[in-house]
């Protein structure tokens, strides 16, 4: 920490009563909390990516390659748990949300700064519990990240502790959601009307509602897994009259909306970046803002599409399938609006914009393949195959992951007062984009051909494409390393970054670089919209 404090000058980096690590882990400043989240989620992303790399190495050739089947089971479980609960759910909202949201609203901090710090502590505690569960008791969980019963109630691995860690992480997520909703309702600067709220913050508003309304369901469900294991309640045990499918329902009642906790903030990032790098006001501001809420609402009623093959009435399948297609509408509205924003714009292809553009393409591929899964007839064919794995990596990594890096290249220089070098960023992006498509598009083809997911071994006819996918994972990881190294090096040692070089019209670009502890010298009065470049006085 000391080196970082020495490198970055001024602003919130300097103004603090405490010294050393205490100045960070006890700070209620939303910017410091956001950066702490950022370091954590980035660290877990790299861990998760490394585990993914190992999975791909194992699948490079048929038969045992580098590990035993048991290790493989633990590996894909931990990869999922780390990526979902430690990286992607807190990813953009907790890190960039904390960094950017209060400033975009013209506030000095979030509504409950101490609760904000507490929620970081809960995140850290939950993360430590999950990590401890991997190395203690019966070893790392081998259930898959979904913890499906009855296996999760019976396996001898350390499921109870891991699940309890996720429970604590859920608490952290809920508190962040409550904080953001209250902040957006109560802390807006004078003149910051609802239709002047930047779209990133709008997306966080929709996300926060999902966090508040969906997370309690996973909390009770995971608690039930623990009680099932410890007290033997038998609520999901068919021999005792329980129903394992009920577990699946309760799990997905949370975990499907959670998909929108992951993707909505990413969409918000893109909505903020595209107009700035196209030099044009956003097209269809209200529709983008509204579609975030529509996705959050409709997305809460589609969980059953994960369970077409689990035992559900045909009517149930039909209804869930129909509702799933409805979610596609607001998602498509966003994509069309982003493209319309760029039309006849003066587009500058810098790193944040490249990541944003690849988001649109990759998210569209992921979203459209989601419709193949949402339609019951085709889903039966590709259910639980690599097609599903390819699909959600397109949405989660190609969508949220690329949006995360877009946000990092767009906002972090503002907070560090230094910037990364442009060329390595672009080279890294090219590697990521190519490697990504080789890896996951191949997975989708494999799935179409019938290769099941979560299998340790496979038939020889899948060998060639599996090899190709593994090569893709190497290219992808090379890109990730270049990008992260370039960011890290640039933000601590790079050239100075000041003012508003990209010409953003949202409030975070109007404050000093790095922003002072209190964000604003005086409470701002907002006189223009978030994409009104003329009103903001930027060229």
């Amino acid at each position: 920490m000391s080196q970082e404090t020495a490198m970055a000058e001024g602003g919130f980096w300097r103004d603090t009563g405490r010294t050393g690590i205490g100045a960070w882990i006890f700070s209620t400043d939303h910017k410091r909390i956001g950066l702490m989240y950022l370091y954590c989620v980035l660290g877990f992303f790299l861990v998760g990516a490394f585990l993914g790399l190992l999975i791909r190495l194992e699948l490079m050739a048929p038969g045992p390659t580098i590990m035993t089947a048991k290790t493989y089971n633990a590996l894909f479980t931990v990869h999922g748990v780390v990526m979902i609960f430690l990286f992607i759910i807190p990813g953009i909202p907790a890190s960039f949300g904390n960094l950017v949201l209060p400033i975009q609203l013209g506030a000095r901090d979030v509504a409950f700064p101490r609760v904000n710090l507490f929620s970081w502590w809960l995140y850290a505690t939950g993360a430590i519990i999950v990590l401890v569960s991997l190395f203690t008791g019966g070893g790392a969980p081998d259930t898959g990240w979904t913890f499906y019963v009855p296996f999760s109630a019976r396996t001898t691995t350390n499921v109870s502790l891991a699940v309890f860690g996720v429970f604590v992480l859920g608490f952290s997520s809920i508190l962040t959601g409550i904080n953001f909703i209250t902040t957006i309702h109560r802390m807006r600067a004078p003149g910051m009307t609802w239709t002047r709220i930047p779209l990133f913050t709008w997306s966080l508003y929709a996300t926060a509602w999902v966090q508040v309304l969906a997370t309690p369901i996973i909390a009770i469900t995971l608690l039930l897994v623990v009680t099932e294991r410890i007290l033997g309640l038998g609520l999901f045990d068919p021999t005792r009259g329980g129903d394992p499918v009920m577990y699946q329902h309760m799990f997905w009642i949370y975990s499907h909306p959670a998909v929108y906790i992951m993707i909505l903030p990413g969409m918000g990032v893109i909505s903020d970046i595209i107009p700035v790098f196209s030099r044009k006001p956003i097209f269809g501001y209200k529709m983008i803002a509204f579609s975030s809420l529509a996705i959050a609402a409709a997305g809460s009623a589609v969980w059953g599409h994960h369970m077409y093959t689990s035992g559900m009435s045909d009517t149930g399948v039909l209804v869930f399938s129909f509702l799933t297609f409805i979610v596609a509408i607001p998602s498509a509205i966003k994509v069309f609006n982003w493209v319309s924003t760029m039309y006849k714009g003066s587009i500058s292809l810098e790193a944040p914009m490249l990541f944003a553009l690849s988001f649109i393409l990759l998210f569209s591929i992921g979203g459209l393949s989601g419709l193949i899964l949402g339609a019951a007839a085709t889903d039966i064919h590709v259910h639980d195959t690599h097609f599903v794995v390819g699909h959600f990596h397109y949405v989660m990594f190609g969508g949220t992951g690329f949006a995360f890096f877009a946000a990092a290249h767009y906002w972090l220089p503002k907070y560090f007062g230094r910037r990364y070098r442009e060329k390595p960023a672009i080279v890294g992006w090219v590697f990521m984009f190519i490697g990504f498509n080789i890896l996951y598009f191949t997975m989708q083809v494999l799935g179409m051909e019938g290769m099941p997911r979560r299998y340790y071994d496979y038939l020889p006819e899948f060998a060639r494409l599996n090899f190709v996918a593994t090569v893709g994972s190497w290219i992808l990881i090379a890109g990730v390393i270049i990008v992260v190294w370039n960011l890290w090096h640039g933000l601590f040692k790079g050239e100075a970054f000041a003012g508003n070089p990209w010409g953003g019209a949202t409030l975070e670009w109007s404050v000093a670089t790095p922003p002072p502890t209190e964000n604003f010298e005086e409470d701002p009065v907002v006189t223009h919209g978030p994409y009104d470049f003329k009103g903001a006085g930027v060229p």
Partner: protein
Amino acid sequence: MSHLEKDSFGAKLGMWLFLFTEMLLFGGVFLLYSVYLTRYPKEFGLGGRQLDLVYGATNTVVLLTSSLFAAMSVTAIKTGAKKLTLGLLSGTVGCAFIFLGIKYLEWSAKFHHGIYPNSPKLIAGPPGESIFFSLYYLTTGLHGIHVIVGAVLMSWTAVMVQKERLNASDNVTLENVTLYWHLVDLVWIFIFPLYYLIL
């Protein structure tokens, strides 16, 4: 909204959002109840009749009284009546203890009859009965934990009132803790008929 004044409306908004999450937490349990009630109506009926209505009804009265005390304490602190506030808060915490005591008696009686999660009697009996009592222990146990948390919060607020950190002009924390207490009460208002009355 200036950041300098304390925003008590905002604090209450945050609390209400938190209460939503609590309702949804219990919602999961009620969801299981409704599904399994449809599946095992007969066994649920038999199980429900084994619960002691006297214990249940007494606890309902105790909890409603505690909520009344809690609501009155908010009115009291706003008029600056510190002693009255403290008395009413002690009344609430006292009721919480009575509630937990009765719950203890009720549970021990059941344990005595060999009815507890994973007990040989329940495993040997019909599946629906085991499900009913598992749900019963789960729901009342989860609610009991909330009663304990609420009592701890109430006691902590009482200390704050004693130290005059909460007073006639600044008392939103007391109001929020009271809201939480009402939620605990409200959840019981649903648990009581679902387990003791309608079956």
